[in-house]
């Protein structure tokens, strides 16, 4: 059924495949940029990946205005301010972000500051508040999960006030997303599994949210099909370039899907688990996705039944009776999690993930105030969240 009204934007030009990095200089010139600031983290710098990007830029006649490699695991307001200062001091005209969700979110935060002229990022918190284009931003993801290279969201921590600042705007979408298989080859199996489950959660929740639309559905469907085929291969053999590239595409597709259709209760609780109990996001998604699906099942069971096709393939779909497809889809998600638990030790309960029982109420209260809740197809209150948490514990 077509929604009465929807909006969709995926502004990022996608460069996917062999030697994608080497095309970055061409894209920068297309965007009118010639002096990017390269953002990354220490781990990637030590692995030599940032050097590879710098070599690719040099081969195309581009010299970075600077490199900032001290981005922490959680993007923070202080780091964003520091980088914005460096950007201005070095007279940069664009940003190239190499890393996972934290690096990409930091880059988006920096882009807000340097493009708006504001000094305090907190003044621009909110949804669709930014009213002008930002500086060119090229995103080079090194995980296959968050989809930040294709999303309009940035979350920056404000440790001083102990809150997370959330920014949602179409202007935050990177101009170019670079998917090069070289960048995820060294991801350990457990991280590959967890980030892959994150991408799956994005796609499933986008397909069933109240903001879903035909275009986001197409993206989500493609993402789930790729995850079905390639995530197990990428976990089993990290050096499989085809699997790595397919998962990078799946993560981008799922990111674009949820960027235009939002997520729901699984992500609301997952964010809270991360904030309260420091559970890694991908692990939280692996634990919570089947429980969230069970919670929503009476509302969007038909959609789950449709998803059995990309989740399990045509044969399983065809031989499963119609009324059983929703449950079978949820079972497929569970089986995938169990497979990765056997192969990589991926936690499948909140307790295994390090959550203590005393934290459950605080997690529930935090989840209630997460913006993702609004797009969940079913109403969720404190008791509902506690029920999900107890079942997932």
């Amino acid at each position: 059924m077509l929604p009465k009204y929807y909006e969709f934007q995926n502004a990022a030009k996608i460069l996917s495949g062999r030697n994608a990095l080497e095309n970055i200089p061409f894209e920068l010139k297309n965007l009118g940029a010639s002096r990017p600031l390269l953002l990354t983290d220490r781990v990637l710098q030590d692995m030599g990946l940032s050097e590879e990007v710098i070599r690719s830029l040099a081969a195309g006649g581009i010299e970075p205005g600077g490199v900032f490699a001290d981005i922490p695991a959680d993007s923070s307001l202080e780091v964003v301010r520091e980088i914005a200062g460096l950007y201005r001091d070095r007279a940069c005209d664009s940003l190239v972000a190499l890393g996972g969700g934290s690096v990409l979110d930091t880059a988006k935060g920096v882009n807000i500051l340097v493009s708006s002229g504001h000094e305090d990022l907190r003044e621009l918190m909110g949804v669709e508040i930014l009213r002008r284009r930002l500086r060119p931003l090229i995103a080079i993801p090194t995980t296959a999960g968050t989809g930040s290279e294709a999303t309009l969201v940035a979350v920056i921590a404000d440790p001083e006030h102990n809150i997370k600042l959330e920014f949602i705007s179409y202007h935050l979408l990177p101009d170019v997303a670079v998917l090069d298989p070289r960048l995820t080859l060294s991801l350990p199996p457990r991280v590959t599994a967890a980030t892959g489950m994150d991408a799956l959660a994005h796609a499933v929740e986008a397909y069933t949210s109240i903001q879903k639309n035909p275009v986001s559905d197409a993206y989500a469907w493609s993402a789930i099909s790729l995850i079905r085929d390639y995530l197990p291969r990428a976990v089993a053999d990290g050096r499989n370039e085809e699997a790595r590239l397919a998962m990078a595409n799946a993560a981008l597709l799922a990111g674009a899907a949820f960027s235009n259709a939002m997520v729901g209760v699984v992500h609301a609780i997952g964010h809270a688990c991360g904030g309260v109990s420091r559970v890694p996001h991908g692990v939280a998604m692996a634990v919570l996705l089947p429980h969230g699906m069970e919670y929503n099942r009476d509302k969007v069971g038909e959609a789950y039944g449709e998803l059995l096709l990309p989740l399990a393939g045509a044969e399983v779909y065809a031989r499963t009776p119609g009324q059983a497809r929703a449950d079978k889809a949820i079972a497929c998600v569970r089986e995938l999690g169990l497979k990765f638990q056997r192969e990589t030790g991926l936690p499948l309960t909140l307790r295994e993930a390090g959550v203590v029982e005393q934290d459950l109420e605080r997690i529930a209260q935090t989840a209630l105030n997460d913006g993702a809740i609004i797009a969940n197809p079913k109403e969720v209150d404190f008791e509902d969240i506690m029920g999900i948490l107890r079942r997932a514990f």
Partner: protein
Amino acid sequence: MQSLSWGGVVVKSRRQFRGWHWRACRAALWFLGRAFAAAASLDPRVAGEVTGWAEGLTVLLEVEPYGPYLALGKRDGSLHLLRRRPDPADLAIYFKNPAGAWRVLSGQIGIAPAYAEHRFCLAGDIAMGMSLVRCLNLVEAYLFPPVLSNRILKRPPQLRRSRLRIYTAAIFGF
């Protein structure tokens, strides 16, 4: 009258933008504000949400591009209507246009579907925004008859007071 240039075309005044949607929104916001303040004192769930707000917090609901607006503020622990438009407000919802605003204010769609349809922007802390959304859902449950509230709310809440009581408090102030 203030002359404005919009897209190269000079328009005579802001009054040209005040069609029937604008006037209907103004009336609806007037009543919504009073109902919100009433619910904040009569429904413990709304009161509980407001208790969690910082003292002095200001909330603005405004219809772009030229109003109308509803401004609320927390003073001395309770919620009050504000005469003056806070600038800036701590939390602001800006409906993108009067037609979109009217769909929400007249009960054609709820706040969650309005968000899904990109009918408004939100400036401020999104976590605070979720508290406001919960309050608005409760107020809508009081203001609209079941035939509307059952359609626009994901799960209509149980009413702790009668609709008549909220309406009386909104109209007469007690």
